[in-house]
C-alpha cells in the first residue's frame, strides 16, 4: 500500500468516524497496540514488537530484518508522545501518532519525533499495525 493510499484511506476512515463508547473502546485498543509497540521496542524485545504487527503487512519482513540490526547496534529510547484516533471501517482503523526516538549520548544518532498515520488491521480478531505513513520528522538533537 502506497503512502498516498494510506492517507486516502485514513481520511476516509476519519470521515466515517462514529461517536460513543464503541469509538472510545476501539481508540483505547489501538492506543494500546501503539504503546505496546513502543514499549517492546524500548525493551529491545523483537518478538513482542513483531506481535504488534500484522504478519501479512508489507512492512513486516523489512521491519523484522531492521530490528535485528537496530537492537544489535543501537541503544534507543522510544516514547509514544501523542495518539489521536481517526476512524475505522470493517477492515482498517487509522490513528495519527507522534513517536520520539532518542539515541544514547555520543552515539551519533539523530534524535527525532516522527509524525505518522498508522493503519491497523485485524489478524485473528486482534488489531495490529498494518502500515504507516510518516508525515513529517522533527529532528530534536543532539
Amino acid at each position: 500500500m502506497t503512502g498516498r493510499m494510506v492517507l486516502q484511506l485514513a481520511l476516509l476512515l476519519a470521515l466515517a468516524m462514529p461517536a460513543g463508547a464503541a469509538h472510545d473502546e476501539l481508540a483505547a485498543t489501538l492506543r494500546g497496540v501503539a504503546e505496546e509497540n513502543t514499549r517492546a521496542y524500548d525493551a529491545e524485545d523483537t518478538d513482542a514488537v513483531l506481535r504488534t504487527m500484522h504478519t501479512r503487512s508489507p512492512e513486516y519482513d523489512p521491519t523484522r530484518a531492521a530490528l535485528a540490526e537496530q537492537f544489535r547496534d543501537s541503544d534507543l529510547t522510544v516514547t509514544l508522545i501523542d495518539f489521536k484516533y481517526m476512524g475505522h471501517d470493517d477492515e482498517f482503523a487509522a490513528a495519527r501518532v507522534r513517536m520520539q526516538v532518542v539515541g544514547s549520548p555520543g552515539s551519533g544518532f539523530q534524535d527525532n519525533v516522527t509524525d505518522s498515520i498508522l493503519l491497523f488491521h485485524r489478524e485473528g480478531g486482534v488489531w495490529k499495525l498494518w502500515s504507516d505513513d510518516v508525515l513529517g520528522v522533527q529532528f530534536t538533537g543532539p
Partner: protein
Amino acid sequence: MTKKGIGLTLCLSLSSACVSQTQWTPTVDTYGSSRAQFVTRDQQECRELAMQASGSTAGQTAQGAIGGGLLGAAAGAAIGAAAGSAGRGAAIGAAAGGIGGGAVRGTQSNAAFQRAFNQCMRNRGHTVLS
C-alpha cells in the same frame, strides 16, 4: 556495523529514492565513442558529484523517502540512524509544508541527482540516452 553503516543499510532498505540514487545509472551509448573505456570510471565519479550537487546526503535521502518500509517505532529509529549529522532542529514533511512533504522532497532530490549525473557524463564526452 557502524552507525553510518546502519544508516546506509537502512536507507537502502527503506528508501526508493535512496535505492535509485545508489543504483541508478544513466544509459550511455558507447557506439563509435573514443571515450568508451572511461564510462565506468566516469560513472563512479559523476555519481559522487551528482550526490553532492543534489544535496543527497544519506540523511536527506532517508528524509525524502520516509513514507514506507519500516513500521512503528522502527521507522523513527531508522530515520535517526540514517540522518546522522542532519542539522539540529531541522524539520521536514508536514512541518515543512504539508502532508507528503517528505516524499516530495525525495522525488525532487532524486530528479536533481539524475539531471546532475546526466550532465556530468555529457560533459565528459559521453552520449547519454536517459
